[in-house]
């Protein structure tokens, strides 16, 4: 098959670069996919007119006025825009509710130099521009990324699962941690990672964000039964999903 390759641009905002690293560590999954795509490297200084691409992948959250400007330029140039990872998709760990004013924190960090480096409250990309599809996870799971790309190259706009991690966990045949009194968030967390953490004996901490219609009241009750305080339960819910919860309330 010698169809025209899909031109892909990767753009990196505020994050840990783990998503970027996850990509370069995917060589086992990627050879077949790489045959069909061409990764284009854009010098940021270039004007958007020369940004000729079919799809833009965005990693990282929006955290500064400069980020807002840049994401708008990318959106203008990209016919399809996909967020990759928790930071760009749901705000991710950057959006942990710190319970205090941004200005106050900046004051603590930079003192009277606080206005030297402008920052905004952390936002997912969808708070600023339209997002066509998303790959969840912190980090994204290589198999999930491969699934996404395969469907995408077949001409679909892939959708993420709307069912919880528990379903995948049961399929793996894991002994349930929650039943053993370990506060696992798999019940309310979006699947797609193959129950990565519970399969390794660790509770799910919700890095893929909440499923639609998550029953948070039921979760609170079972976490209370695990011995967590209200504050601890709130903290758990706000680890990755702070921005999603804001939308619900």
């Amino acid at each position, binding site marked *: 098959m010698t169809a025209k390759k899909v031109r892909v641009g990767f753009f990196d905002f505020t994050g840990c*670069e783990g998503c*970027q690293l996850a990509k370069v*560590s995917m060589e086992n999954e990627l050879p077949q996919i790489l045959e069909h795509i061409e990764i284009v490297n854009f010098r940021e200084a270039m004007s958007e007119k020369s940004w000729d691409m079919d799809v833009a992948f965005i990693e990282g959250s929006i955290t500064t006025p400069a980020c807002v400007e840049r994401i708008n330029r990318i959106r203008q140039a990209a016919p399809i825009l996909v967020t990759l990872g928790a930071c760009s998709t749901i705000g991710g760990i*950057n959006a942990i509710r710190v319970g205090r004013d941004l200005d106050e924190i900046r004051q603590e960090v930079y003192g009277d130099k606080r206005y030297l480096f402008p920052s905004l409250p952390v936002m997912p990309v969808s708070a600023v521009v339209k997002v066509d599809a998303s790959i969840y996870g*912190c980090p994204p799971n290589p198999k999930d990324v491969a699934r996404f790309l395969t469907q995408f190259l077949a001409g679909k706009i892939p959708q993420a699962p709307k069912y919880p991690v528990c379903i995948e966990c049961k399929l793996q045949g894991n002994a349930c941690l929650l039943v053993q009194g370990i506060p696992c968030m798999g019940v309310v967390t979006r699947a797609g990672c193959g129950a990565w*953490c519970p399969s*390794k004996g660790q509770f799910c*901490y919700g890095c893929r964000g909440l499923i639609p219609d998550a029953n948070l009241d039921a979760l609170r009750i079972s976490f209370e039964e695990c011995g967590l305080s209200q504050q601890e339960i709130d*903290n758990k819910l706000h*680890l990755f999903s702070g921005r999603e919860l804001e939308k619900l309330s």
Partner: protein
Amino acid sequence: MSKTVSINVEHITRVEGHGNIVVRVRDDKLETCHFEVVEAPRFFEAMLKGRSWYEAAIITSRICGICSIGHQMTSLKATETALKIPVSEQTVLFRKLLVDGSILSSHLLHVLFLAAPDVLGVPSAFALMDSNPHAVELALKTKRLANDLCDAVGGRMIHPITCVPGGFTDLPTPEVLRDLKTRYEKEMLPMLFEVADILESVAENFPDFTRETEFISLGDASEYPFYDGRIASTDGETYPVDEYLSVTNETIVDHSTAKHTHNKRASYMVGALARLNNNFDKLTDTAKQVAARFGLAAVNHNPFMNNVAQLVECVHCAQTVIGRIDDLLQRGIEPEKPPREWKGKPGRGVGSTEVPRGILFHDYTYDATGRIVKANCVIPTNQNFANVDLDMQAFVPEMLQRGMDDNAMQFNLEMLVRAYDPCISCSVHMVKVD
């Protein structure tokens, strides 16, 4: 004829994150010369406040994907020290094994994909595929082996799953470990020697530049210290890790969202070269032999040699991986039961480990419910920025004297910054909340 130079590299490529090099020389006078960090700040210490003992490592892992194993180890050590959570010998052995893997993974990425294009005279790792396909093949295969080790012990390489306060939630089987050991003996080590051959063949392309400075790393330990030790300096002193603040002295500078540090001199360097300079005698003999092929011995003041020091550490770590697996297999692997609850006294703990780019500190104070009231993290890249600036300020006049044109100077300066392997995302973590 007087010389005027203006170099402005925005978003220098092949480093992790966003930084600019700015140099202005007017009429032979060096007016501006520094490395600007323009990455958006992230407020990790503020994010940690109010968080529980079982969450700190999950959060700080996200400071940096590449250093996530190192951040987790350091974080766990700080928490365990603060809350007096015991750790078994087996846990420590597995953690050291995981750290070896993370050092290999990060160094190989840096040496082969980010730094090697400079000495091999090509613009990028992509271009290497055409000019040196074998180097790319070595890079991919060795990195795969390093990642496989991290996956086996940590559950995954980026933001590992299994490492929690007091132990591991899951461990690899003896079969997996035996297989890894064989692959490290039969594949990893021979491939690393090939990498050494390639670098040695272009060794003269590492610029000849030295500036005397202080090197700080862990030291004074029973083995080459990635996981344990005191703070050691090539100026002769050692300090306990909980006195790190008297060594790091962070300050804010106008041109950078990352803070700078200094000890007794105006700057110091951390990373592979610093570790090697402080602990040369603890390297394996084979690693020492590789160092000798490049004329690298303690104390070496050429920052470009950091790349070679990374290679030397790779050889060292590949060998310690084999030794540690032997050790674990001989002892027999016990399933671990890390604590799910904590009840005890409030307290403060400082954790320090060597991550690929240098010495890292996490400092947490916990209340009686096991939640953080105060946190501070000092990241290696920050500790290097002041040293990078001073190197550039010494290097630019030298290059002018050697009659280099702007392009050659720019090339060398970019190479200098890359030699430090800066991880800029890490460095804009923000300081102190109380």
